[in-house]
C-alpha cells in the first residue's frame, strides 16, 4: 500500500493479517495491520469469529436453560458467569439466598478469579517466550479443576449455581482441599513473581508498552483489572457490594501507568487478594441450607411433592413453565475477572426470556486495541493483546 507519511515521505506499507487463526491471538480475533518496517501504522480489528448467537439461543429456552450458555461466555471462569446471571435474576425477584450459599458463592467466585488471572498471566508470559510460568501456574490450576470436578462433575463448564442458590452442597473434605489448593496457588504465584517481577527481559518488553491514560480508558468503557492498571480505583465488589463483599477485608490493586506491565502485575497481585478472600470465606463456612425456600424459584423437594398437592403443582409448574421472572427490564452486574459483567434482562413475565444482553467486559478492551497498538512494534502488540485478556467467548457471545 503506497502512502505518504505525515512527514511527506513516500513509503510502501506492508499489510498483514494477525489472526483470526494466529498463535498470539488467544482465540478467534483478527487484527489487520499496515506495517512500516516493524512499526504499526494502522490497525483495523474485526471480531465476530466466535459469534455463536448467545442472545438468540437464550430466547429459545427457559430461564434455567440460560445457565449452560453463561458458562461458555468467559470459559476461563465459568462459575463467575453463573453467579453473575443468577445474581441478576435473584435481584429481579428480590429474594435473598441463604448465608451458606453466599459464602460459597464468594469462595467459588474468588477461586474462579484466581484461575482466570492465572490463565491470563501464564499466557501473557508465554507469548513473550517465558514458558516456565505456564507450568508453574497451571499445576495449581489443575488442582482447582479437580475441586470443580468433585463439586459439579465438569472441569471447565460447571453450571454450578442455580437461580435461588446452588446446584448442590459441597462434598466431605472440600474445605481442606480448598485450603491446600490455596497454598499451592500461593507457591506457584511466588515462583511466577520471582521469574517475572524483576526479570529484565520481561520488564523491558512490557514497561511502557501500549499504555493508556485513565481518561481514555474510561471513555473506552474499560472496567476491571485493565482499568485499575491505569490508576482508577474502581471495583464493584467495593463500590456496590454484593454477596456481602463489604464484610471481607481486601484491597483493590491499582496500577499507575496503564501499560502492559501494570496490567499483568495488577492481575498477579489480585490473585493474592483473592487468596485472602478465599481464606476468610473458608472460616465463615457454616452448615446450613444452600437454596432459598421461595417456591417461585426452587423445587419443593421429593418428600413434599409426593405427599402435598400444592407442592406437586408447584413442582410441575417450575419444571414445565420454568421460573417466571417478574416482567420488566433490569440491568444487574458483578465484578467478573475481566471487569464489569452485566446482564441486561427483559422479561415479559413468562417462563422464557424476552431478551438477555450480556455486557462483556473484554468487548470494551478489544475495541480500544487498535488505538493502543498503533505506533508501536508488532511484538508489543502481541504483548499488549495477551495482557488485556480477550476471551473470545464473551467478546463475540
Amino acid at each position, binding site marked *: 500500500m503506497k502512502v505518504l507519511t505525515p512527514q511527506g515521505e513516500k513509503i510502501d506499507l506492508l499489510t498483514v493479517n494477525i489472526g483470526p487463526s494466529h498463535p498470539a491471538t488467544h482465540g478467534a480475533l483478527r487484527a489487520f495491520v499496515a506495517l512500516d518496517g516493524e512499526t504499526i501504522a494502522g490497525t483495523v480489528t474485526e471480531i*465476530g469469529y466466535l459469534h455463536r*448467537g448467545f442472545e438468540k439461543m437464550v430466547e429459545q429456552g427457559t430461564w434455567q436453560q440460560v445457565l449452560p450458555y453463561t458458562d461458555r461466555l468467559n470459559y476461563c471462569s465459568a462459575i463467575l458467569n453463573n453467579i453473575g446471571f443468577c445474581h441478576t435474576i435473584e435481584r429481579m425477584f428480590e429474594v435473598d439466598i441463604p448465608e451458606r450459599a453466599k459464602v460459597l458463592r464468594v469462595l467459588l467466585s474468588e477461586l474462579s478469579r484466581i484461575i482466570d488471572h492465572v490463565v491470563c498471566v501464564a499466557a501473557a508470559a508465554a507469548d513473550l517466550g517465558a514458558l516456565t510460568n505456564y507450568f508453574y501456574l497451571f499445576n495449581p490450576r489443575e488442582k482447582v479443576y479437580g475441586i470443580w470436578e468433585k463439586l459439579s462433575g465438569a472441569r471447565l463448564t460447571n453450571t454450578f449455581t442455580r437461580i435461588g442458590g446452588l446446584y448442590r452442597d459441597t462434598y466431605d473434605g472440600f474445605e481442606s482441599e480448598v485450603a491446600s489448593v490455596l497454598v499451592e496457588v500461593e507457591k506457584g504465584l511466588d515462583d511466577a513473581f520471582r521469574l517475572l517481577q524483576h526479570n529484565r527481559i520481561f520488564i523491558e518488553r512490557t514497561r511502557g508498552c501500549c499504555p493508556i491514560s485513565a481518561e481514555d480508558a474510561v471513555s473506552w468503557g474499560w472496567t476491571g483489572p485493565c482499568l485499575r492498571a491505569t*490508576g482508577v480505583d474502581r471495583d464493584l465488589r467495593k463500590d456496590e457490594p454484593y454477596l456481602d463483599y463489604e464484610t471481607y477485608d481486601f484491597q483493590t490493586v*491499582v496500577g499507575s501507568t496503564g501499560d502492559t506491565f501494570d496490567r499483568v502485575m495488577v492481575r498477579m497481585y489480585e490473585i493474592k487478594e483473592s487468596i485472602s478472600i478465599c481464606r476468610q470465606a473458608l472460616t465463615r463456612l457454616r452448615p446450613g441450607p444452600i437454596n432459598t425456600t421461595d417456591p417461585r424459584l426452587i423445587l419443593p423437594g421429593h418428600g413434599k411433592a409426593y405427599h402435598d398437592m400444592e407442592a406437586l403443582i408447584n413442582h410441575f409448574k417450575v419444571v414445565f413453565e420454568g421460573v417466571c421472572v417478574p416482567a420488566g427490564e433490569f440491568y444487574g452486574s458483578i465484578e467478573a475477572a475481566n471487569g464489569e459483567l*452485566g446482564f441486561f434482562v427483559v422479561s415479559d413475565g413468562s417462563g422464557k426470556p424476552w431478551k438477555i444482553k450480556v*455486557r462483556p467486559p473484554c468487548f470494551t478492551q478489544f475495541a480500544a486495541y487498535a488505538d493502543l497498538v498503533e505506533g508501536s512494534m508488532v511484538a508489543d502488540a502481541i504483548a499488549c493483546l495477551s495482557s488485556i485478556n480477550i476471551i473470545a467467548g464473551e467478546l463475540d457471545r
Partner: protein
Amino acid sequence: MSQTATTDLGRELVPANAQSRKAFQDQAFQILSSRFEGILDPADRWGLTVILPGPKLHEAVRFLRDDSEFQMDLLLDVTAIDYLEYPGHEEARYAVVYNLRSQRNAARRLRLKVRVEEESPSVPSIHDLFKIANWQERETWDQYGIVFAGHPDLRRLLNHIEFQGHPLRKDYPARKRQWLSTNDPLVDPMVARLKANGFSVLEAPTANAPSVEETDLLGKVSREQRNNVEKQS
C-alpha cells in the same frame, strides 16, 4: 471526556447504598424530565429508566457526561429491544437502550431509552461522546438494524459481510443459516484508518481475497441452496 485529573478518578469512593441511589435517581429524573422532556419508564421497577425523545438524546447524554453534578462518564452498553408481539405493548416496535454509570460515584446508574418506529429505525449516534459507542452502535445495527445517524462507519460487527437481515429481530428465525464464501478484506476501513492517522494513501491495493469459486465450501451444494435450507429442529 471531562477534563479531570487522574487523581480525581483514583480517590476513595463511597460505596453505594439504597439512600444514595434514591437521591440520585430523584435528582436525575427531575433534570431529565424538565430539560429533555424525559418520561419515566414503568418497565424498570428496580432502578431508573428515562424515555427520551430521539432528537434530545445526544444533548442529554452530553449533559449527563459533562455536568459536574452527574459525571456519568461510563457508557456501559448500547443495545436495542424488539417488542414485536410483546404482551400488552402498544408503543413503537423498537427501543434503543443506553446504560450509563458514573466512575466517580458508585450510586449513579441510569438507563436511557429511545423509542424507535419500525418504518425508519433511526437514532442519533453518540460516537463523538464516548469512544466505545462506535462499536456498541455497530453491534446494535448489526443485530437489530437500527441506524445510528451520523455514525462514521456503520458496518456489521459480529455477523459476516454477506449476512442478510438482522438476527436478533424477533421475526428472524433462529435457525436460518447463512453461509459465507469469503472474508472481508478490510481494505476500505484500513484506508480510512490510515487517513485518520495522517497518512495519505496513494495507491490502495485491490482486495486480494480469494474469489468465491476458489473457496466455495465443498462445492456440492450452491450457497443459495444451502441458505434456503432451514434446518428443522
